[in-house]
């Protein structure tokens, strides 16, 4: 079984693109021109650069990569795919270039303004992008994810499942499981927020082994929503996600209703 704490003892730099990069960086740059263009176009779509500057930006990125050749050779340890590593470098370069020109990204319409009309291409693009990135953010919560799912379902009054509860509280007794499912397993829209948190608070204390008041649960949930909005706003320059729009993304995650990709 792979040791979860250690990387392989002898990291083999088997990525053929990196081998080629060691010998001939220009050849790799040539090979990855499509990737450079894709990332630059992506930045243009998110409003970081005007479309007419596309060729200039690609040139600047290439120049920057050539200047960084020695640093890349030294720093890349062969743990990730070289292609993804280079994507990270290219994106960082675009961010630097964007900061240099001091351009303000084009605002993306807030998700809460979405009126369900799939005909508008900008909406379609923004929502699909937000949805996809949101679903890439969730696994990053790691050990906090089961708690986040529970808290968000309670906040949005969505039915808890046995899987949700067991993932969050593995040692939950059948009795407690039954009580939680009885209370929150089905429709409970008519239960107000205060009642919800008052009921679950003792279960949180039992599950986490520490005193967790109603206010603490609510505060923790809001903090995670703010973090997600922050991450989305950072990944989609010019976007304006807030707690409400992230709640909407959770609604869509629990019961997909937005655009199908």
């Amino acid at each position, binding site marked *: 079984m792979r040791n979860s704490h250690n990387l392989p003892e002898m990291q083999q730099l088997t990525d053929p693109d990196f081998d080629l990069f060691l010998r001939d960086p220009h050849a790799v740059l040539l090979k990855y021109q499509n990737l450079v263009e894709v990332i630059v176009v992506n930045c243009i779509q998110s409003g970081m650069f005007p479309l007419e500057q596309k060729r200039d930006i690609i040139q600047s990125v290439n120049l920057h990569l050539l200047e960084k050749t020695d640093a890349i050779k030294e720093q890349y340890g062969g743990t*990730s*795919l070289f292609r993804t590593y280079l994507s990270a470098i290219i994106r960082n370069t675009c961010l630097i270039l964007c900061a240099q020109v001091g351009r303000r990204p084009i605002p993306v319409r807030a998700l809460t303004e979405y009126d369900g009309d799939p005909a508008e291409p900008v909406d379609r693009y923004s929502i699909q992008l937000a949805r996809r990135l949101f679903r890439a953010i969730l696994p990053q919560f790691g050990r906090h994810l089961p708690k986040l799912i529970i808290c968000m379902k309670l906040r949005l009054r969505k039915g808890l499942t046995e899987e949700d509860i067991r993932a969050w509280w593995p040692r939950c007794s059948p009795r407690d499981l039954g009580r939680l499912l009885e209370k929150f397993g089905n429709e409970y829209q008519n239960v107000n927020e205060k009642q919800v948190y008052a009921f679950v608070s003792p279960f949180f204390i039992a599950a986490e082994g520490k005193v967790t008041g109603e206010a603490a649960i609510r505060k923790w949930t809001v903090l995670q929503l703010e973090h997600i909005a922050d991450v989305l706003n950072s990944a989609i320059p010019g976007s304006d996600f807030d707690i409400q729009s992230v709640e909407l993304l959770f609604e869509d995650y629990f019961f997909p209703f937005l655009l199908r990709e």
Partner: protein
Amino acid sequence: MSNTKRLFTDIGHLNDEGVALFVDALKLHTVAQLPADVRDHVADCTDCKKNITGVFAVVRNEDYSLLSQHPYLILNRTARRRAAGATWRIAAAIGGVALASALIYYLVARNSEGNIRQSEHVTQESARESVAVAAPELAPQAAHTEQYAAAFTPSPEYESLVETGTRSFSISEVRPANGSTNQGIGIVFSWKASPQKALQVVVMDNTGAEVWVSTRSLPPIAGVRKLMGGLYYWKLTDGEEAVHVGKFTVR
């Protein structure tokens, strides 16, 4: 260096390579394979989440599915091959033990009664020894419970795909129904596809590892593999794309 320090900057955040490795894991649905300190750091760090999501955003349309190997992550295909290899090795070991037991029994049966008693004594001693050896391997109840619970953790990657379909296919009357609870053996997969076409059933556990793949066929298809308790996802594929994704639980 063999530890994960090389994935972090001097101030403790993921460096470009650490970020790239996390993005690889997101693309390949193998986040659980990442080093624990990488996962734990990202779980608590908004800055690293921003970097990872930013890089993911620019490679989101890149197709990683044809990747044959990764320098660190074990791809699901490889995992399946290794699991299959391990199964065969275990089966061979069990077969070997059974054969040896039969041979011993045969030889013992030919010996005198006294020898048989002695042999029984030896066998009982061996049994006691084997129990003594096996006992520490039994996981404590709590660990077992956590392990069991972990098998039910929904996969964010696959949850988003459940019940999605394609324009080229209409799939209906799908069994097992989404969210249904099943026995671990004898699950029958059935559906109505329009246009009718032979499809392949691929069953994955909640980590995304493929646990059973059918030959391409028309429904119904009986799952021949016994599944342990847990949450499973399954997809119907025509060899090029998934035309339906569903999920079910095994108790």
